[in-house]
């Protein structure tokens, strides 16, 4: 998010304003009140005596509420005002806002206070791509209430705005003529209710209550969330701030689907406040040692929405785990396929991996039994549909033009390219997908053996995984460059770019030891390691661009998984080096890592360069410091006990993580960096 905007959110409802608190959406300013992928309010502009107040400070009290302190000035150099404005806003199903004016002068003031309102009811895709509306906008005034609406056939969305003081109510504004005595104040409260697809049901089930009451409950809920997570003690002070920021942002991104108990992490603000299979699963992995309940909710919700039939428009195939769900107009009228869209080639394997990871960490075998049918369907998808051409590897290719070109985590159009910059043909079998298959099959073999009482399936999966590993290490290896190909293209040619994807192979365990050693050298080289993290593509490659979305930027989550993979193969020092870089970057971002930042070398910049449209907070960037902590302390589970194997770099000193939840109950872990002579 831009530094010029202020965002508050609650589930899929969020408000993006300028630092005055105004919403003034333009093609370049994505302000608004958003719910269910629709902008319910595009204009909310306060004037006092015809003047837009000047911001003095913004108090972001919690992820769901904010205060703006302002003064009504004449625009001169000096803030010579006797009139201050305080706007207090809290989001929930819309938002509630109190505007309070204080007259600090010795004389009474007569003022016109005006609040302009409007909504374009833009689908989030329309906001992003600047598209025009098809249906009809309307506005009604009735009994002091403004209703802004949009209708296209039965698709109806409305924003209902009420004030708690009488004034002139127009179709596009509330106007109040007030006199404020000296040393006195005047205030007005507004209730903005966004009526989405389930508005009539919510009217019956959940009467609207004041945000003051909700805020109390949410404040308490947030405190309980933080208290329920392990407590961190660290000698490197920024780590405390980064950890707390991650927990709070993860709390903010919690998203209740209504179809399964609990909340799963939404992908990120502002474009991705929706269910995303891959994002929720990877974030669940990162946060396993801290808030494992996120994983259970994620697994169950994604299981309910698992694909049941073939549908080319949605890239749906039986057993596949979804990529994305959207609820806006373009999806409702099938201009877009996200209802749900299944164009993710990795989410199915990641779901299986997380099922085993969750069981091993928490000891909850019930969920493995509960989801056995879905797990078997997911395993069947890998062989029946994931491997489209039966060459033994999972590959992807969209079925229709509305689908995604790239269905791996690097899902921008140009991410899968040869070293000379030529785009790879489809279908594309990216290397990390094969690693995920290997890992998923081995993990599910254990579940089949220990929980499902199906040793035949277990043996079959183990055998298939080892066969895959043997073939992969031959077919994907580029001996002349000493790393694994990014992918096999449609003609089964090795896509020879050096990318961060090879780090995911270490996480999965599919790489042979000696080949892993060569990959580690590349990962830690100046071409891939920028000094702030691992570049998505090495600076030596033809497509490299330090501000290219997936072809040169550093993604903190990507780096965190690379670090975890390095630990798996025993490269503790290298993992620690990456972890330290990520944490130092996080410190420079005031504790909140964006989804991506520029791949410029650290020798050139004393801070990580911002990527222009990066989401923040973004779930797996929020999760990155958590996986980094897990990596530094070497935390894992053998299904009964917590394993602790710390490797802490200077200057992080000592790290203590207390009350780590798991199948062992609660346990503490600590580690300290060793001086060179102790190492």
């Amino acid at each position: 998010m831009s530094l010029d905007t202020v965002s508050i959110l609650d589930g899929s409802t969020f408000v993006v304003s300028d630092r005055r608190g105004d919403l003034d959406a333009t093609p370049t300013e994505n302000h608004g009140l958003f719910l269910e992928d629709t902008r319910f309010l595009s204009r909310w502009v306060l004037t006092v005596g015809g003047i837009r107040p000047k911001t003095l400070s913004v108090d972001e009290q919690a992820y769901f509420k904010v205060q703006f302190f302002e003064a009504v000035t004449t625009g001169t150099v000096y803030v010579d005002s006797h009139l201050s404005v305080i706007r207090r806003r809290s989001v929930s199903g819309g938002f509630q806002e109190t505007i309070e004016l204080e007259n600090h002068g010795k004389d009474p003031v007569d003022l016109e206070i005006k609040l302009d309102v409007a909504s374009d009811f833009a689908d989030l895709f329309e906001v992003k791509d600047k598209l025009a509306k098809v249906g009809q906008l309307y506005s009604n005034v009735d009994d002091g209430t403004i209703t802004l609406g949009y209708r296209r056939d039965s698709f109806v969305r409305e924003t209902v705005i009420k004030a708690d003081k009488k004034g002139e109510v127009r179709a596009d504004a509330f106007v109040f003529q007030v006199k404020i005595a000296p040393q006195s104040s005047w205030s007005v409260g507004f209730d903005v209710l966004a009526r989405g697809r389930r508005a009539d049901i919510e009217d019956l089930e959940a009467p609207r209550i004041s945000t003051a009451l909700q805020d109390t409950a949410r404040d308490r809920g947030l405190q309980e969330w933080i208290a329920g997570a392990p407590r961190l003690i660290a000698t490197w002070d920024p780590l405390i701030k980064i950890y707390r920021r991650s927990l709070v942002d993860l709390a903010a991104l919690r998203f209740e689907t209504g179809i399964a108990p609990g909340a799963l992490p939404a992908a990120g603000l502002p474009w991705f406040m929706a269910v995303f299979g891959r994002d929720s699963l990877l974030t669940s992995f990162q946060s396993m040692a801290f808030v494992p309940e996120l994983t259970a909710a994620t697994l169950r919700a994604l299981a309910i929405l698992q694909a049941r039939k073939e549908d080319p428009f949605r890239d749906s195939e039986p057993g596949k785990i979804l990529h994305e769900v959207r609820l806006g107009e373009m999806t409702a009228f099938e201009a877009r396929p996200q209802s749900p869209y299944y164009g993710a080639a990795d989410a199915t394997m990641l779901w299986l991996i997380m099922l085993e990871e969750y069981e091993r960490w928490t000891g909850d075998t019930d969920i493995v039994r509960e989801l056995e049918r879905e797990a078997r369907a997911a395993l069947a998808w890998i062989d029946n549909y994931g491997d489209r051409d039966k060459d033994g590897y999972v590959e992807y290719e969209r079925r229709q033009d509305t689908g995604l070109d790239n269905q791996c985590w690097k899902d921008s159009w140009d991410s899968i390219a040869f070293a000379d910059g030529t785009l790879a043909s489809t279908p594309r079998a990216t290397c990390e997908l094969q690693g995920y298959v290997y890992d998923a099959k081995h993990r599910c073999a254990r579940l089949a053996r220990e929980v499902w009482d199906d040793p035949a399936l277990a043996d079959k999966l183990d055998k298939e995984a080892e066969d895959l590993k043997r073939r992969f290490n031959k077919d994907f290896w580029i001996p002349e460059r000493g790393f694994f190909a990014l992918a096999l293209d449609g003609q089964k040619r090795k896509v020879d770019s050096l990318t961060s994807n090879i780090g995911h192979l270490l996480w999965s365990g599919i790489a042979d030891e000696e080949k892993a050693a060569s990959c580690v050298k590349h990962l830690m080289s100046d071409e891939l390691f920028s000094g702030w993290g691992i570049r998505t593509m090495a600076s030596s490659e033809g497509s490299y661009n330090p501000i290219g979305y997936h072809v040169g930027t550093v993604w903190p989550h990507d780096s965190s998984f690379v670090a975890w993979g390095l630990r798996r193969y025993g490269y503790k020092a290298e993992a620690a080096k990456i972890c330290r870089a990520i944490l130092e970057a996080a410190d420079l971002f005031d504790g909140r890592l964006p989804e991506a930042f520029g791949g410029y070398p650290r020798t050139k910049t004393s801070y990580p360069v911002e990527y222009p449209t990066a989401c923040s907070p973004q779930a797996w960037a929020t999760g990155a410091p958590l996986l980094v902590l897990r990596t530094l302390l070497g935390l894992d589970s053998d299904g009964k006990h917590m394993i602790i194997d710390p490797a802490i770099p200077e200057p992080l000193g000592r790290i203590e993580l207390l009350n780590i939840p798991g199948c062992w109950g609660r346990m503490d872990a600590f580690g300290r960096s060793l001086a060179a002579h102790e190492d």
Partner: protein
Amino acid sequence: MANESSEEIAGRKWHGGNAPGLAGVYGRLRVTVGGKPIATMVVEGTYVALIPDVSGPADATVMCADEDVMRKLFAGELNPFIASMRRLARIAGDRGFGTRVMLGLQVGSPFAPGAGIGDMT
């Protein structure tokens, strides 16, 4: 429960039968049309039937805007997400169960025209 059944509901005869996408799903789904309860869908694994009960226990309620929406939804012809977004149908109560049923019927439904075992007449 028998493997075939038929009930007169909303002026039409509905035949119960096999719905392979509902394997492992069990429960009762109340059906309302235009706000009025008209039936209950009984789901017992891959067997599903509509019965005229409107007052017995139910795990969830599917609220359909009109009979045409109900017919398309139960035939697996209308994507339940699209129906929800367009306010044609909503699920209340145990939404996980209701969603499983609606998605499961998309795989194959005894209420689909030409389903053989259960054409609506």
